[in-house]
Structure formats: structure tokens, C-alpha cells
């Protein structure tokens, strides 16, 4: 990482023609991934990316340049390029608000993945494949993937912030194909945490593989999903992506400011059922969306977004917070040094309620039980969002019955939030996710207890 004199030379170069703010973000990322497919370990890939992104803000305009050359000369050129970009605008100057702060470091994980032999990582793949194939003869294909990364970042800016973080993540996933008379079906299960190789002392990859296998097998006997509006019960853990899409993105201050969110202008209003308390929490140790600082150098926080149904606040990054004269909520994140930071979620979850999950199902005359969700997507301007169900069942007379084939569910954020009428006491976090926005992907976590919602439309093909 860079020394103090280099940082100070870069910040000076950014400010020398008159700017409101200059920031340098330095990143050194090493990663390795290994994949087993079709019975073979076919790809062990590893590499390193390092460089710095320099951002200069003048009025309402941001100039940004990045370089993989960390010499002081090259960084100065990048700073001047960014400053020239910032002068391309005509906006008025804003006061610098922040006082000097710093946050640093984390305790490194118990077992740094870079100290683990590659053969040990490859052995996990084989163990997972064996477990999935021996679960059932109908399993015709298994793909297993291991990945770890270590991302060291350093952030310094003209407001006096100088922070650093060392982020280690490890993940494992298994995908299966089951073949039967009805064609092929797929199953997937994954685990990912902001921890080191000790992930595998708490996670049994064979168990993970059996779950992925079972998911595909179950769907061989599945019937087409129904079509139309129904009551939906979402199981614990897997359903967090619904909140990520239904309201998470709509509570990002950059989208709110552009009028591209149905939640604009609604702070202090009731936007959800009083059973809904939604939190975005970057501090959750070990979770996939956890870091010590955000990518603008601020300590991450636990932010309550919706409390008992009332909208408390949006999520903020430094730029948007500056223009509103308030503090960032620590949600400024970026995919890499080559990207500008934006408002992003971290770990987003619904707090547990008081209902017994078994009662929630028993009290549902007919509907759909979604045990595991795929990804989703939202149009924040209209509030319409979709998410996929990768493991789902019918609910008939208060009982979970026949498995259903895959499909998307569609709903409207504000309407769905208002129509949540039961929240269970069985909270759990879900699978690791990658959230995409404006072409940038960042790791995020989510979680929910069992919950029931009315008025979602199931996009199946059955009447």
C-alpha cells in the first residue's frame, strides 16, 4: 500500500487547480478459484489486480481516473486527469463538512486461504462431487466451485480521512443436474462468508452437495407452478432477496435524488406493515456483505431503514450526503479501484417476529411455500420487482404439498410491504449474493424469518 508522502502528493495534485474534494482509493486484490465439472477438476485459476482510482469533486461534478501503475508520477497524472474532468462542469462549490476521521484494520481470519495448500482446496471439490452423486442415481451432472479472495484497500481524502481494510472472503457452491422421464432439473446450494479457510470447519461441503442434489431430484416430480395472484409463504433465510429488491434498492439515496424511486419523499411515513423492521448492517461479523470500512473509508454501520413499518432513512454515500449536508451512512461501495463508488447495500435483513413458523403455514388455506429463492431484479421507479423461486411447494389446506417447477414471482414493492401479515420467530441469513447496479457487482448478504405475504403474482404456466 502507499506511504504517507505519496498519498499527500496525490491529494495535493488533485486539489491544486481548485477543487472541493480529492480521494485516492488503492486496492490490491488476490484471488483463486477452482472448478470441478463433468467429473474433472478443469480449472484452477489465480491472479492479482492492483491499482488506484482517484476521484476529484468540484461542485456537482466528479472527475475520475484510475491507474494500475502505483508510482507517484503516474498517480499524479491520474489525479490531474480526474481534476480536469471535475472542471468540465459548472456547478457551485459545496462546503467541506467532514472532520478528520480514521478507521483501520480488522483481525485477520484464523486461517488465511493463501496459506492453505491448493490441493486441499481441490480435495473439497471432489468430496462435494462424490456426495452429490451418491445421493441419488438420477444425478447426472455435478459442478462444484471453490473461491477465495483477499482484498486490501486504503482510502485517503482531502477531508482528512485515511483508512485501510483487509477483506478475506471464502465461498463454495455446488450445482447439480438430475435427469428423469420429465427432462432435466437443476439444484444449487452455496455458502460464502467474510472469513478464511476456517469456513470449512463450520461447513460440511458434502452436506451442501446433498442439499443441491436433493433440490434437483425434488423438482423431477414437480408440477408446473400456478399462474396468478396467490398467498406466498417464504421460508427462513432464502427470502432476503425479496426485501433487497422490493425496497432495498429503492432506499438508495442516489436513486431517490433522481426521482427514480417510489420511496422518494416518504421518510417518516408508514411504507410497510407494522410487522416490518428492515435493517442494513455492514457490521455483521463474518457475513458476506461485511467489511470494517466502506469503499469511501468510513466505518460501516447498522442502519435501521424501516422500523415497525415506518420509513426511517435512506442509505447514503459520501457524495450524496455532501449535497444534502448530512453524514454518509457508510454505504459507499465499489466493485474495484476501476469503479466510482455508489450507494450500495451490505447485509440487508428483516428482524424476526413472534409467530410460530408452523402456525403461519397451518393458517394458510392455499398458496405457495417458497423455500429457496434465486436472484431478482427491480425497477425502482415503478417499484415493480421479480425474484425467482428455485425450490417451492404448493400449500393446500394449511399443509405443504406438491413441489413446483421454477418460475418468477412479480410484485410491487410498496404493495407487497403493506401486505405482509405474518412474520416468524425463526430468523436466518441466506446464501451469499452478488448485487449488480450500473454494471458493478459487490458482495451482499440478506436474511429473513418465515413470513407470509398476499398479492404476489406467481408466473407459472398452470391455470
Amino acid at each position: 500500500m502507499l506511504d504517507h508522502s505519496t498519498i499527500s502528493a496525490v491529494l495535493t495534485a488533485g486539489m491544486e487547480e481548485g477543487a472541493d474534494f480529492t480521494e485516492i482509493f488503492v486496492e490490491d486484490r488476490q484471488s483463486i478459484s477452482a472448478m470441478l465439472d463433468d467429473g474433472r477438476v478443469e480449472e484452477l485459476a489465480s491472479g492479482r489486480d492492483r491499482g488506484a482510482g482517484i476521484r476529484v469533486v468540484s461542485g456537482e461534478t466528479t472527475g475520475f481516473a484510475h491507474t494500475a501503475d502505483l508510482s507517484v508520477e503516474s498517480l499524479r497524472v491520474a489525479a490531474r486527469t480526474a481534476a480536469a474532468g471535475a472542471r468540465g462542469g459548472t456547478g457551485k462549490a459545496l462546503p467541506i463538512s467532514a472532520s478528520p476521521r480514521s478507521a483501520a484494520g480488522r483481525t485477520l481470519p484464523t486461517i488465511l486461504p493463501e496459506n492453505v495448500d491448493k490441493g486441499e482446496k481441490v480435495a473439497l471439490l471432489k468430496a462435494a462431487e462424490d456426495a452429490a452423486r451418491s445421493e441419488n442415481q438420477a444425478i447426472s451432472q455435478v459442478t462444484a466451485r471453490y473461491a477465495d479472495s483477499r482484498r486490501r484497500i486504503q482510502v485517503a481524502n482531502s477531508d482528512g480521512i485515511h483508512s485501510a481494510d483487509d477483506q478475506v472472503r471464502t465461498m463454495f457452491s455446488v450445482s447439480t443436474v438430475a435427469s428423469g422421464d420429465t427432462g432435466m432439473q437443476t439444484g444449487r446450494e452455496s455458502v460464502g462468508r467474510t472469513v478464511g479457510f476456517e469456513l470449512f470447519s463450520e461447513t460440511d461441503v458434502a452436506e451442501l452437495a446433498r442439499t443441491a442434489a436433493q433440490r434437483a431430484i425434488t423438482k423431477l416430480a414437480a408440477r408446473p407452478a400456478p399462474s396468478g395472484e396467490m398467498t406466498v409463504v417464504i421460508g427462513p433465510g432464502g427470502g432476503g432477496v425479496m426485501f433487497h429488491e422490493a425496497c432495498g434498492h429503492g432506499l438508495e439515496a442516489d436513486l431517490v435524488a433522481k426521482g427514480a424511486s417510489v420511496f422518494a419523499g416518504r421518510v417518516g411515513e408508514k411504507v410497510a406493515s407494522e410487522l416490518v423492521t428492515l435493517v442494513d448492517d455492514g457490521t455483521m461479523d463474518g457475513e458476506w456483505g461485511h467489511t470494517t470500512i466502506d469503499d469511501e473509508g468510513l466505518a460501516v454501520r447498522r442502519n435501521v431503514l424501516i422500523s415497525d413499518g415506518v420509513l426511517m432513512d435512506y442509505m447514503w454515500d459520501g457524495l450524496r450526503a455532501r449535497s444534502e449536508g448530512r453524514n454518509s451512512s457508510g454505504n459507499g461501495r465499489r466493485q474495484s479501484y476501476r469503479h466510482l463508488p455508489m450507494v450500495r447495500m451490505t447485509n440487508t435483513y428483516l428482524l424476526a417476529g413472534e409467530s410460530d413458523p408452523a402456525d403461519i403455514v397451518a393458517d394458510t388455506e392455499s398458496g405457495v411455500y417458497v423455500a429457496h429463492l434465486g436472484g431478482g431484479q427491480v425497477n425502482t421507479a415503478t417499484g415493480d420487482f421479480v425474484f425467482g423461486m428455485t425450490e417451492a411447494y404448493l400449500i393446500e389446506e394449511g399443509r405443504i404439498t406438491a413441489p413446483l417447477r421454477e418460475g418468477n414471482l412479480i410484485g410491487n414493492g410498496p404493495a407487497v410491504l403493506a401486505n405482509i401479515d405474518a412474520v416468524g420467530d425463526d430468523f436466518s441469513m441466506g446464501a451469499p449474493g452478488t448485487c449488480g447496479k450500473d454494471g458493478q457487482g459487490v458482495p451482499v448478504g440478506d436474511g429473513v424469518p418465515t413470513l407470509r405475504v398476499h398479492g404476489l403474482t406467481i408466473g407459472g404456466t398452470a391455470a
Partner: protein
Amino acid sequence: MTPAEAQALADGIVERSLPGEQLEAVVSWARNTEVRAHGGELEHLVSAEEFGVGVRVIRDGKQGLSWAGVLDSAELARCVSEARDNSAFGTPDPNAGLAQSDSVVPQQLDLVDRALADVPTIDKVEIALRLDRAITAADKRVVGHEGADYGDGIGVSAISSTEGIRAAEEETSTFLGTYALASDGSDTTTGFGMSVGRGFGDLNVDSTVEEAVERAVLLLGARKAPSRRTTVILDPYVCSQFLGILGDMLSAEEVLRGRSPFADRVGEEVASPLLTLTDDPLCVEAPTASGVDGEGLACRPLTLISAGVLEGFMHNAYTARAMGTRSTGSASRASHRSAPGVAPKVLGVRAGAFNPSEILAEVGDGLLVHELAGLHSGVNPVSGDMSVGAEGVIVRGGELAEPVREITIASTLQRMLTDVVAVGKDLRFFPWESSGVTLAIADMTMSGS
């Protein structure tokens, strides 16, 4: 970096190979500009230069990869030795191996607009500001947009291998795009507009604005519609997204691994006779055209489905060797960090005889779809199950009727192919690997209220 410099760098890395191993090096370099205007101001200006090297080593039938993002000799040495070390952990595979030159010579396509390098930054800022102003002035129902974006890039790539493969290519690209926001006082709707080209002069502010405004305004007042089975008309943009998924299913990689529902169906009728599907990487009007594939072999035109009959699959060197055939020049790399997979470059259906209004008239009653949501979560290319969110306009008596949103459309990809009832002549290219035409598909399930 020039193509010759990139080639020399790739050649230099190959010289580090040891006896008994195959070694392949790819080099990529790009310089990009990105401008966003909003509310009459320049929001950001990004100037970026990116560089990357990827190395693949195959020894004793085992493959390893490594990459580096900086151009210093210690990093390049690390990259080569790490790829070599990584190969030790692979499972031996008799079919593993780098591509061997075949009789097809790569074409040097003209993918560069030389004038782009000399366009002053201030002109790029000005075109984004002009787009910003024009959107909000276009229609009183348009209340804003999410950003008026300009982007351009100059990209160079080169590949070299111990098997005598050597190729380099250069291309330029330009982009103008926005999402307009329209409102009738209660609901807000969005509509995209875009213009793409190879040079600055190819971009059209007026058509971008017109498209974004028309798409956003058309959806004002949209409601959920009752569930029913109906004919769905995909516009060229939605059609291109659908074809993108179909491309995955016709990759020999998926066939080889038992993940394609079309695996045993070569020579059979898998689609309506109206449908001919090709991959034509040499079509220079397409932004994704290329003369060289991800392993350095010549790209070549390929017919995948001919009048409804499945002709074959796309291959790279590995799948071809494993299945006893020749590569179709369809090796594809997501970036210098990845091993070559299989993917089309310019996938498209052969244009039909009808314009969109003739197709509406022919269909009579149905749903015109403008926008899809949840493609990555709602389509399973292994089972073929497809269920995605949609926005569009109901078609009644051959005319556009009321707009709809918060609905899904569902079928299976296999059935959608056989249910194609009309193919438009309005071929359009997009800045991704599939083109689109207006395409009508019978008997899909629309789920709503």
C-alpha cells in the same frame, strides 16, 4: 497500446514456455471515456485505461490459469509460473489442449473509427449535456431521467501460443443512452433509448431521445391484466435477450456436459419452419463483430437452426476434440481472467418479410412486450423453464390497446421455438452478442390478476 505492441507482448510471454508444455498468452488493453450528465450539469467524467494479461498452461492433459493486471516483468513472471503451478492440480484429460491452426484464415475486419481518438473531451461532455436537455424538453410528461450517458472505448487484444497461433485485433465503440422517467401524476414509468456505433459521428441524440420518451410514455397508466394464455410479440430488444439465452443452450460445452435439452436433436425439427438462427461474427454492422475467436482461430458464419431444423452446435477447440468434430471458431473469453468457453458473437434470426404493424395485424389479439425483468432468475437453460416479468401493451384487433405491467410471461424455451408464428424484418443490433427482430410466439401464459 497498438495491436503490434500487444502481439509482441503476448509473443514474449510465450517465449517463457518450458519444453513439454503448451502455453497460451492473451493481452488486452482498453482506453475508455464515460460521461454522465444530469439536471443540466456534468455529473461525472471517467477516464480509464485498463490492461490485462492471461496465461494458460496445459501439461500432461492438465490445465492451469493465471492473470495479472500490471505490466511489470516480475508480475508477468509470477503469472506464468502460477499458471504452470495451477496446472498440476487439474484432472488429466486426453482432450485438453490449445487450439491448432486450421485452414480458415482470420479476416482483418475494419472495426476502428480512427477519428475517435481525436475527439476532444469537451465534445463528449457536450453531447451528454445535449442528451440531458433534450430528454426533459421532449414531452411534458417526461419528468426526468436516471442519467444521460455517453461512453466510448478503444480496445486492443492479442493472442499467441506455443502452437503457432498469433492474432491481434483492434476496435472502437461509442454509446449514447438513457432511461427516461415519465409520470402522469400518480405513476412513474421508465423507457430506455440508445444509440451505438464505432465513431462519434455514428451517435444520434434525436433518435435516442425519441425512443426513450416513446417507450416511457407508452406505459403511462399501465395496470395488471387478468391471467390468460395469449400470443406474445417480442420487440427487437426483448427478442435479442431471448436469443441470448438460446445461445447458451446451443453451446457444445453444455451439450458435452449433459446440460442442453437439445443434445440429441441434431437433424430434427426443433423450431417453427419460419425460424433460421445464425451466428455471423463477420457482420461488421454488429457492435460485437470479430474476426478472431477467444483461442485465436478465425471466426466464421455458422447456421445453428435452418428453417426449424437443428443443424449443430457452436464449438471451441476442446469441445470439438471431445466430440470428434472441428471448432466452429466460437471460443469466447469473458475477460483475460477466464479460460475460453463457447459463445456466439453475433447471434440472430434471419429477418422475415413483415414490418411490426403487419405482425400486430396478423396476430390480432395478444401482448406486445417491451421490457423483461428477472431473466437471470426466471430462465433455466437446462430444463428450459422460462418465466419472466414483463411490461408492454395489449394488442386488440391488430392495434395497440392499453398498457400493462406487473405481469409475467411463461412457457418453456423448447415450446417457444416451435410456437413462433411471425418473424419481422426490422433487424436491430445491440451492444451485446445477439440481435433482434419483432417475433411473435403463440400460446404463452400471461400471469397477472
